[in-house]
């Protein structure tokens, strides 16, 4: 007989909702020269995909653009996916 599945208990897992980076139309690109490590981007990121070194996890970043809007130094630019270089 099959394993008992008594009720829907889910366990924590990275990528539980898939690689949400594929949702992106625009990708955040950080200009490290302009960045002053203020941390606003990481604080405002709804999905917590920006780490303490201000590296953005593009596997999961949905490309909402909040980081680019809120960056006081305008160090983040949203670039159309598919374009390999910043304009």
């Amino acid at each position: 007989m099959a394993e008992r599945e008594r009720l829907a208990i889910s366990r924590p897992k990275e990528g539980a909702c898939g690689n949400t980076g594929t949702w992106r139309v625009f990708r955040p690109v950080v200009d490290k020269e302009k960045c002053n490590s203020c941390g606003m981007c990481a604080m405002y990121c709804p999905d917590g995909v920006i780490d303490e070194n201000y590296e953005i996890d593009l596997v999961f970043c949905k490309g909402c653009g909040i980081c680019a809007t809120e960056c006081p130094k305008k160090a983040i630019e949203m670039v159309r996916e598919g374009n390999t270089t910043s304009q």
Partner: protein
Amino acid sequence: MSGTSATEYICKCTSACAGCSSSLILRHVLKAAGPDTVLVVPACCTSVLQGVWPNTAFNIPIYNVAFAAAAAVASGMAAAFESLGKNTNVIAYAGDGGTVDIGIQAISGALERETNFLYICYDNEAYGNTGMQRSGSTPMGARTTTTPGGKTHKKKDLDRIIAAHHLPYMATACSAYPQDLVKKVQKALSIKGPKFMHILAPCPPGWRYDSSQTIEIGKMAVKTGLWAMYEREYDNLTINGPTKAAMIKPTPLEDYFKMQGRFSGLKEEQIRTIRGEMERNLRMLKAEAEGC
């Protein structure tokens, strides 16, 4: 961010919409609450964005319950933890539909019974999970799928209903001010008894704006004075800085409406009504804060 741990309690990623402010709120709520926390979630956006069985994006126990039941389930949980001698935080995290409409009876009961829990209403001003139908919390004039011509009724004054329960702590907050909301969650959880937070949660698809503007819209709601930020400890009211500033020099309401597609077609008299309600609210808060 200062005051909270670097630990994230949401694994990358939920299936929330890009630019979702309720995800941002919850991320900071959980960081403020820490790991010994159980979240009770009624039907709302948060119940569908966790992931699909057998996986979840949340690295904290989440108990999903029926729409009207969050505060009552939390009551039972709080009583059980008390009987077990545990200090686990019980946080109900519910949308505006589950709070101001179908869930309000259970909330009122839980507050009256002095349940030791924190109830958080993240308010995106409509039934977001089912595609933006009107709720009691939808503001006048906003278009939803069930108010295609704009809502003709006013937003329900949830906070004064809650305040009438004379609870030890309640606060309003906004997703655009995460540091403020973290402080409020931490303060709430340091107090025994019923606590309530009402947090404005702008919704890009529902309010019809570009997802990159989530924080700006939230700030604008506060700067106009439309969304007032304050804390109430029993009957002592403290108005927070951004709202004090808005009371002195508010940003024009029209600037807030212009940013959102849901307010297209807003009529002059509706703006007058909304402004009147807003001014009355601020007047009452100010009077209360000044103790007169």
